[in-house]
């Protein structure tokens, strides 16, 4: 356990050194919010991959596969394929047309104040929900990984303070490099674990999949079960399982391209071509990583076993426990510190996207009509809001320690897919689209996602009195909506809201400016350029 602590401290020291280095290169809006647009294609690709491969993927998906086999692997597939939407539809137009946030693209030809206000609200909603889920996970995990050295509250406060320091002092540049280092560590750890798993099976896929076909564990009633873990249906059972799978797929495919903390990364590169190459780099890394979840998840199921994992911290501990079983305590400490690095890097990325949107969209453009009254004000406001966002997240994470917050990630993806993506796509591709449509699309998408999750089985359900704590549903009544992922309904509603809003109003200026957006997003004419340090 002591080794974990030392590795954690080494990682913190390295990231603080990066933050110090970056702090001297973060003066001015373009430097602070977009790392002067000088991040290269491969660097940004690794950072995008890092933002995406959160602790929820590394620990969560390995855990779901270790307990529910093949159905967990379906998550892995969707997480990669979703990047085709980013590559084919979003990345290049966004880079060409915008400056710091996704709202820039909307404000290009629509009335800036209403669309920025709504887009900022949607961005803050996605980032905050995603962050609280990460922070609560972080607290539990760090406490578990550092067994005995820190309490839950200390872990949450520590993670929160570090993330504030990265963002306030190092801006986008520090956040990007913390993310790059973490992603490289995560890939290294995953590759090492995969090789060790295959070594355990004498590098024979036949033996490996043979073992996956006969995973033995005890079910809830204590009976011994031998289960083929490659068989579909262990998690998604009828009647609603298939619909749930489709709805989850929709949230991933349309939501990834609407996640603010992913979108802001495309502003850190010099041009659209580099943005495109960075998506390809990200896809190579993300794809390789999620294919390897096969070895992590099934390895944990076969080598460690669901019974043992259940008794030693639960599903999220599958990957670290697998490391311990295969190569002892030092490797356990290494994998644990990678998980810790992952959490830190992802919450920092979320914080900077939230503060950028608040400062650039809301403060400068909504409140002050697009005029920065004093040079440096935008960055100052972002720094102050990083303290607020960090403080609020710490407080909420402490408050929600015992709550089950996994649904917040589903909610973040649903809002991104139902509110953000429809309006970005329509604003780039539909000449007729206008302000009323954007505001309606964002509002309907946001409300539909939140509303449907509130009445979903994530929050509603009837538990017997014996169920207490996090497992107990917040609202004790039968769920009104049968799916945990609202995407299948909320995404069409978001599009519908945007289309109806557009059709019932008329805005000639938005149509007149469409040519400008079309030419700019397709040729890069007039796009924001890289700045010298």
């Amino acid at each position, binding site marked *: 356990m002591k080794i974990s602590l030392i590795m954690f401290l080494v990682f913190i020291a390295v990231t603080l050194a990066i933050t110090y280095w970056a702090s001297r290169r973060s003066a001015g809006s373009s430097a602070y919010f977009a790392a002067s647009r000088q991040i290269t294609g491969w660097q940004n690709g690794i950072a995008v991959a890092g933002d995406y491969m959160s602790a929820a993927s590394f620990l969560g998906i390995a855990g779901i596969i270790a307990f529910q086999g*093949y159905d967990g*692997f*379906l998550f*892995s*597939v*969707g997480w*990669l*394929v979703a*990047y*085709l*939407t980013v*590559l*084919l*539809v979003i990345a290049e137009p966004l880079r060409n047309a915008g400056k710091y946030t996704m709202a820039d693209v909307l404000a290009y030809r629509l009335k800036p104040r209403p669309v920025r206000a709504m887009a900022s609200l949607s961005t803050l909603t996605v980032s905050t929900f995603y962050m609280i889920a990460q922070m609560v996970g972080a607290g539990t995990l760090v406490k578990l990984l550092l067994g005995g050295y820190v309490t839950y509250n200390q872990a949450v406060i520590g993670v929160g303070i570090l993330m504030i320091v990265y963002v306030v002092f190092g801006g986008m540049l520090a956040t990007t490099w913390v993310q790059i280092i973490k992603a490289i560590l995560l890939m290294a750890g995953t590759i090492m674990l995969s090789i060790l798993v295959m070594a355990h099976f004498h590098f024979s896929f*036949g033996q490996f*999949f*043979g073992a*996956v*076909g006969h995973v033995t564990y005890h079910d809830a009633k204590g009976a011994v079960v031998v289960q*083929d873990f*490659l*068989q*579909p*249906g262990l998690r*998604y059972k009828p009647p609603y*399982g*298939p*619909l749930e*799978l*489709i709805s*989850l*797929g929709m949230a991933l*495919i349309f939501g990834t391209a609407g996640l603010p903390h992913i979108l802001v990364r495309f502003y850190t590169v*010099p*041009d659209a*071509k*580099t943005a*495109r*190459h960075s*998506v*390809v780099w990200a*896809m*190579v890394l993300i*794809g390789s990583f*999620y*294919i390897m979840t096969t070895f992590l998840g099934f390895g944990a199921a076969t080598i460690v076993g669901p019974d043992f994992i259940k008794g030693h911290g639960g599903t999220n501990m599958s990957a670290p426990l697998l490391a311990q079983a295969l190569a002892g305590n030092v490797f356990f400490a290494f994998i644990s510190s990678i998980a810790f690095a992952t959490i830190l890097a992802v919450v920092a990325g979320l914080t900077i996207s939230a503060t950028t949107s608040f400062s650039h969209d809301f403060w400068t453009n909504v409140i002050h009509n697009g005029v920065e009254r004093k040079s440096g004000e935008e960055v100052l406001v972002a720094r102050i809001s990083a303290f607020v966002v960090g403080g609020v997240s710490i407080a909420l994470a402490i408050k929600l320690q015992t709550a089950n917050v996994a649904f917040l990630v589903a909610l973040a993806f649903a809002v991104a897919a139902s509110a953000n993506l429809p309006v970005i796509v329509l604003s780039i591709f539909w000449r007729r689209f206008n302000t009323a449509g954007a505001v309606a699309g964002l509002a309907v998408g946001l409300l539909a996602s939140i509303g449907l999750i509130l009445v979903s089985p994530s929050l509603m359900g009837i538990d017997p009195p014996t169920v207490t704590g996090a497992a107990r549903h917040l609202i004790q009544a039968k769920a009104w909506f049968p799916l945990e992922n609202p995407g299948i309904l909320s995404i069409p509603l978001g599009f519908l809201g945007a289309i109806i809003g557009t059709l019932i109003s008329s805005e000639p200026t938005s149509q*007149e400016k469409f*040519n*400008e957006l*079309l*030419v*700019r997003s*397709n*040729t*890069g*004419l*007039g*796009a924001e*350029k*890289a700045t010298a340090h």
Partner: protein
Amino acid sequence: MANTAQNLEIVKPGQEPAQSQSVWDRIAASREFQDLIAIKKTFIVPAFIFFLVYYFALPVLVGYAPKFMAMKVIGQVNLAYLFALSQFFVAWIIAALYVKAANNFDRLAKDILDKTGKGDK
């Protein structure tokens, strides 16, 4: 990348809205630009539709035909796993094809900008 940046330098959209407006409209109306959009569409639309169909076939088949998908193909490995695995390679192939096609888009866009730049001066 340096090349593209240089090309942008040549053009410099006018500061006054009225002047830049005309540049945008002129480019948008030009045959070269219309061609660029048409060529982009002929790649992106089919590629996007193909990947949506191929991807959503996975949850639909796994969800509604689990017995069929559980059919063993090589040893213990079943159709469901192989189809899921194939998604990764299909996604990579589409991405690679897009990058190849996009080099052509870049070339066409560069031509348009070069021409406009000269026309402006």
